């Protein structure tokens, strides 16, 4: 490969941005390390192998954790109580969890078992959890070594029929038409559910429920497609919402390749409480890190509510912060699919140049990161013929600046979840643009004193200024002031705050312990 055209990038400013982001994240990390949440504790139970739902469909992990939370005992960690149940003779974590959930009385922790004893008792089970993750990871790596992925930018499409079996059909069709990555979009309401639905599902508005069984079904379909088309097809879902950590676990063991996972998306776009989100994202990422999954962050969404020209720098600011959080959760740069998007009003003069500037800047600032590049959505109308063109220009920027993961624009964006035909046509169009302009990025140079260079410089400068600001006020305040996406949230507002628990001094969580040692 020749050298790609670059835009000016002041390395000192970039270093300064990273340093500030680190401080911003450290501040929050102190809070995270002192807290847990119902979501986190449920995840831990799942990792210990606890499964199943009651006759109302309530997952066992929810019943158990809620019970101990209500009893004010969650601050010691559900693991501690699980250990005690095991010590009391339960044959395995499943039976132990059932006792926590349905046992005659809540264990108030009288007598016996010190935290260290609990940890010792749980150690083999915790090791088993790690092994399940590692086995899945190795299986993925083996498959990817045998069946190679296509070249970047990877073509990422969504399926979203609501019915996992139809999704499987669509996923294979997408792979047939050239997709590299298939995401199953979640049902509209799921992220606000404080539990993970169970089993295969065939109904869902706006998408399909993320359940462990659904993960299996779709993974099977994409594995088959990988084998059949001789190209590794990546599978994606959403680790976000009130169950972000649980889904991370499920994805880890069901061998998903990617997860939408962002340190702040839930806060901004789902009005989920920030304390809850920060705690949950950390734990989810610890699992993700170990599983070798690539995250996709959600900065692209900012430009759907805020102006893409004026607020371009907020995307970069947030990427630095997301990166800092991710590093603290053990993620490698190669796992950080930082998000950005082509959302400038297409009718603005030189909008294409501004998009180039932003895409190239991000590419340079995050060179090892599998950057996630989102298509136009906000300015799409029902004019599908125009939308095709808009999306083509987007793909052209994608190939020119060598983005890593390209979500394909759909000409029916303003109308519906993509139909089979829409996805096919989008893939065809993208294949054309990638082929026809394959080496464009190597062929050109951006004029050093041109508009593109100036725009890139401006965005980096503004991001630096904003980072300084965020650090000064702390991120908690900054979000309160609408720093991102033009959305304002308060520290104790939003959904799920009640599910946050300060850890006791003798908090027990051997699984997190192992993950933190990874």
């Amino acid at each position, binding site marked *: 490969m020749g050298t790609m055209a670059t835009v000016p990038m002041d390395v000192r400013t970039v270093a300064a941005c990273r340093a500030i982001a680190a401080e911003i994240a450290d501040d929050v990390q102190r809070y995270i390390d002192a807290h847990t949440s119902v979501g986190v504790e449920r995840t831990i139970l799942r990792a210990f192998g606890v499964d199943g739902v009651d006759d109302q469909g309530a997952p066992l992990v929810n019943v158990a954790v809620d019970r101990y939370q209500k009893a004010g005992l969650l601050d010691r960690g559900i693991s501690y109580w699980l250990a005690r149940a095991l010590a009391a003779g339960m044959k395995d974590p499943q039976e132990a969890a059932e006792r926590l959930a349905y046992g005659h009385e809540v264990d108030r922790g009288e007598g016996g078992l010190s935290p260290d004893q609990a940890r010792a008792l749980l150690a083999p089970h915790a090791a088993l959890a790690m092994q399940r993750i590692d086995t899945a990871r190795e299986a993925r790596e083996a498959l990817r070594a045998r069946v190679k992925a296509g070249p970047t930018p990877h073509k990422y499409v969504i399926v979203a029929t*609501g019915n996992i079996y139809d999704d499987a059909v669509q996923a*294979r*069709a997408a792979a*047939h*038409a050239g997709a590299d990555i298939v995401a199953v979009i979640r049902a*509209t*309401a799921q992220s*606000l559910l404080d539990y993970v639905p169970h089993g295969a599902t065939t109904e869902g*508005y*706006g998408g399909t429920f993320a359940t462990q069984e659904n993960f299996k079904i779709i993974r099977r379909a994409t594995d088959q497609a990988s084998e059949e088309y001789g190209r590794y097809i990546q599978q994606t879902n959403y680790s976000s919402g009130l169950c972000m950590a649980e889904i991370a676990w499920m994805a880890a063991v069901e061998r998903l390749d990617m997860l939408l996972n962002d340190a702040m998306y839930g806060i901004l*776009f*789902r*009005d989920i409480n920030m304390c809850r989100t920060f705690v949950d994202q950390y734990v989810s990422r610890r699992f993700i890190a170990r599983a070798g999954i690539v995250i996709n962050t959600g900065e692209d969404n900012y430009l*759907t*509510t805020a102006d893409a020209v004026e607020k371009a720098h907020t995307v970069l600011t947030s990427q630095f912060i997301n990166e800092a959080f991710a590093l603290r959760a053990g993620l490698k740069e190669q796992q950080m699919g930082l998000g950005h998007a082509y959302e400038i009003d297409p*009718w603005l003069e030189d909008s294409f140049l501004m998009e180039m500037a932003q895409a190239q800047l991000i590419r340079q600032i995050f060179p090892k990161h599998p950057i996630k590049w989102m298509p136009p959505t*906000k300015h799409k*109308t*029902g*004019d599908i013929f125009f939308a095709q063109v808009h999306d083509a220009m987007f793909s052209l920027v994608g190939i020119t600046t060598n983005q890593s993961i390209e979500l394909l624009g759909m000409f029916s964006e*303003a109308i*519906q*979840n993509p*139909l*089979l*035909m829409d996805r*096919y*046509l989008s893939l065809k169009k993208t294949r054309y643009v990638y082929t026809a302009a394959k080496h464009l990025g190597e062929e050109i140079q951006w004029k050093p004193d041109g508009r593109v260079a100036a725009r890139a410089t401006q965005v980096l400068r503004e991001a630096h200024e904003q980072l300084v600001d965020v650090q000064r006020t702390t991120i908690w305040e900054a979000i309160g002031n609408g720093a991102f996406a033009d959305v304002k949230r308060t520290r104790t507002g939003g959904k799920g705050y009640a599910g946050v628990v300060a850890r006791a001094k003798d908090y027990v969580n051997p699984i997190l312990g192992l993950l933190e040692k990874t």
Partner: protein
Amino acid sequence: MHPTPPAKPLRAYGDREGDGMVQMSFVLQLTPGVRAREAAKRFSESHGLREPIVATMELCAEGYTYFVVYGHSKHSVDVSQIDVPEVRTEALTREEIEHRISTRLGRKIIVVGACTGSDAHTVGIDAILNYKGYAGDKGLESYKGFEAYNLGAQVENDQLLARARALDADAILVSQVITQRNCHKENGQALIEMAKKEGVRDDFVMLFGGPRVDHKLALELGFDAGFGPGTKPADVAGYLVEKLCGLEPPLPPASKPTAK
């Protein structure tokens, strides 16, 4: 452009009056071939297309074929039979609105808005209510004569209604963007029924809005008016003022053409 008014009933226009040309695309669960081409022709004919041309036939998934077809539609539509009245084109100016509120009503108009159910698309309701507004037209918050409460996204119907009652609001503004399997209709109707059950339906002017909403639909669901894509805050303000001052309010504007 043509000197004469449109002939009734209207046919589709390709490049000559009365040619009836329309374009269709669809997928059939067939493999490309002689038979698939013929199937596509017949399928098109059953829609009323004469001499359909199968312009493209491509395998788009194993066992599925994508078609583009052109044909002369035999159908026509009689515009004179359409009862939907045409839009009043001149909206009130900001000054007129403010003036009417202060002179005729003598108090602020209180509005409460939300994007309801599991729908989290706030951009539309924000565009109408928030100061920033939409396409250069400032939102209701920016008017002296309005007091606007924007409850944001994912608000349940009962919360919205409770809030409106608590604030003694004049109007309730509901936004619905997700429309899969008509959930917007269900959500909207459920609110109206709740209001009726609580006996407060007539205490509020109730507006419905979103990209798939039009006045006709809103009326069917029991709202006072419906607002579709391209609505500007001033359209809503104008409507509310006239309605609340007891005048005949202008109809909600048609969805705006989206061209640039």
